[in-house]
């Protein structure tokens, strides 16, 4: 399978990438690791006229401590996130979720920013970011803005990013003392989650993000409120699928997905000490 022909531009800086986006508008697509975009282009589900390669912007590949927050550059590859000591100690849930993405070859190429910008409800990292209450730094022609994870994912493969904007950094509040669990249910090696639950429990806080339980990566608000008010893991998890509209596909129908969401959330809460 070969993509439709396109013009290739290699960005040499964030500003260069932004000016290429400004020039080509919705004809252009950014290419980071290419592990979501290239499969789509090969299946010809995407056919951008211009591909702007940001894969060499190594200045956007970093993991830094910034006060109460861990800042991760958008171009940081999954592998570098997975094995990083700061990520493991300060936001361990993200390291655990990242280690579950695809297989080693995928994790050598795919980037954190690409995974989030793709906005796929079946992806693991958006759910982890929601549970951890992360924010996204977006750069565009009118400057830099910061968006909370809940407001970033707007629909199926849709995000708050404009055609002329680029995700540059992900910021995650440090939770070194929180307990967490990433529950991913699938049937075959390297597969996407049929359903997944990213769970983080702090001394007086709780975050739960669900994979593949709605048209977008979604927060289980009822579960979080129940945990904070002292409910047991079983009682809190019973609300995990309330109000959600999971997809139906060859792997699972709605009822089964709702069942999985409750079971995985309960396991996640139990593993997090609830």
């Amino acid at each position, binding site marked *: *399978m*070969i*993509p*439709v*022909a*396109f*013009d*290739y531009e*290699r960005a040499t800086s964030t500003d260069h990438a932004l000016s290429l986006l400004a020039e080509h508008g919705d004809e252009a697509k950014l*290419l980071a690791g*290419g*592990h979501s975009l*290239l*499969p789509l*282009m*090969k*299946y010809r589900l995407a056919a951008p006229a211009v*591909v702007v*390669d940001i*894969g060499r912007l190594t200045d956007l590949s970093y993991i830094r401590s910034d006060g109460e927050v861990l800042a991760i550059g958008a171009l940081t590859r999954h*592998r570098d996130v997975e094995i990083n000591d700061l990520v493991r100690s300060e936001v361990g849930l993200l390291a655990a979720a990242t280690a579950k993405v*695809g*297989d*080693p*070859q*995928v994790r*050598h*190429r795919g980037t954190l920013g690409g995974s989030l910008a793709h906005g796929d409800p079946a992806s693991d990292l958006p759910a982890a970011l929601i549970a951890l209450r992360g924010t996204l730094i977006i750069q565009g022609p009118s400057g830099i803005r910061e968006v909370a994870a809940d407001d970033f994912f707007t629909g199926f493969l849709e995000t708050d990013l404009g055609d002329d904007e680029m995700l540059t950094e992900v910021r995650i509040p440090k939770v070194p003392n929180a307990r967490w669990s990433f529950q991913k249910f699938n049937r075959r*090696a*390297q597969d996407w989650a049929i359903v997944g639950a990213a769970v983080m429990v702090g001394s007086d806080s709780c975050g739960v993000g669900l994979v593949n339980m709605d048209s977008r990566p979604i927060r289980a608000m009822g579960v979080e409120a129940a945990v904070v008010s002292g409910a047991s893991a079983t009682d809190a998890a019973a609300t995990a699928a309330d109000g959600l509209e999971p997809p139906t596909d060859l792997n699972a129908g709605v009822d089964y997905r709702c069942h999985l969401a409750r079971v995985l959330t309960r396991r996640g809460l139990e593993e997090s000490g609830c």
Partner: protein
Amino acid sequence: MQVSMNINGEEISDDVEPRTLLVHFIRENAGLTGTNIGCDSSSCGACTLHLNGEAVKSCTVLAVQADGQELTTIEGLADGDILHPMQQAFHECHALQCGYCTPGMVMAAVSLLDEVPQPSEADVREGLEGNLCRCTGYHNIVAAVLQAAGGPR
């Protein structure tokens, strides 16, 4: 577009369309047909080679993305007639039948040992998660990787 990359120690340049996949560049432009295409959809791992020392699926990388980079394919592992220790271990453990998955499997296994030099059996099974073999049932492949790592732990 003119691209140039170092493949197995040799500089190879050619003019390609931006949409050329790395695996096609390797097989057709560089003439190195050891790297196979299986699924062509980033699932099977048959096309695995090393990009700057790390295993990647070359059916999901554009040749232009590898421009100026260093690549190693299965042809670059052996030292003349002397097999790479991973190839030798596959040979000794009978870790292949039809051999179609083997180049990708060996490249993934070498990359795995670079990252986890002393793997457990579980590490090997998870580390080769991205490579499918329809013949062997994996048992002898896992044994070969453990042997190449210096024996089972």
